[in-house]
């Protein structure tokens, strides 16, 4: 069959996957349409509720890029600090790491015989 990729232990076919997604998606949409019918548009119901405070202006509510994974980077501070420090931008380091890695590879090749 077209689009059937053998992976050695099984197979993958994007077309079957899409058909499955369509079927399941259809079922989900069907279920959703059967749901709550007291919801009405353009009433109080679809306005955001921020504990009774007025909604902020849209410009200031946009989260900028450097804050998105703040918690993640803060939690992994011990990993990130030395890593960022390693990227010094010195040209000497650039060439130095090449020599370091060449030496390591040469030693591994030499030891392994």
């Amino acid at each position, binding site marked *: 069959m077209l689009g059937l990729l053998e992976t050695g232990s099984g197979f993958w076919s994007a077309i079957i996957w899409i058909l499955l997604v369509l079927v399941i998606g259809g079922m989900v949409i069907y279920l959703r349409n059967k749901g709550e019918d007291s919801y009405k548009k353009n009433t109080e119901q679809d306005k955001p509720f921020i504990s009774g405070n007025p909604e902020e202006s849209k410009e200031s509510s946009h989260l900028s890029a450097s804050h998105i994974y703040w918690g993640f980077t803060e939690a992994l501070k011990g990993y990130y600090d030395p890593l*960022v420090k390693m*990227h*010094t*931008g*010195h*040209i*000497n380091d650039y*060439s*130095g790491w090449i*020599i370091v890695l060449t030496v390591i590879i040469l030693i591994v090749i030499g030891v392994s015989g």
Partner: protein
Amino acid sequence: MIGNFPYFAVILLIGCGIYILMFQKNLIKLAIGINLIENGINLFLITLGYRKGAIAPIYTQAPSGQAMVLPTPQALTLTSIVIGVATSALILSMAMMIYKHYGTIEVNEVRRLRG
């Protein structure tokens, strides 16, 4: 008597160049380092082509009956010399442009791109 001495000259020149590239902090010095490695490798290639008691591989008015040195490394070295001058020219003009924009050619200060 001479043994493998030319090869040691080669690796000393390469070592000088790599030392400059790893530890010295001036952009033009880095260009000199690359130039030194280049020279070392040229010497390496020519040394590989040498044959004791042989003459240059040119038939015009050569003494007869002698062996000739290996010609291929000479052709390779010609290529590598011209490539070397091209490399130096490009590196040096970039160093000049860096000076134009940054006002310095010290490695410690030429690092706006990092992280």
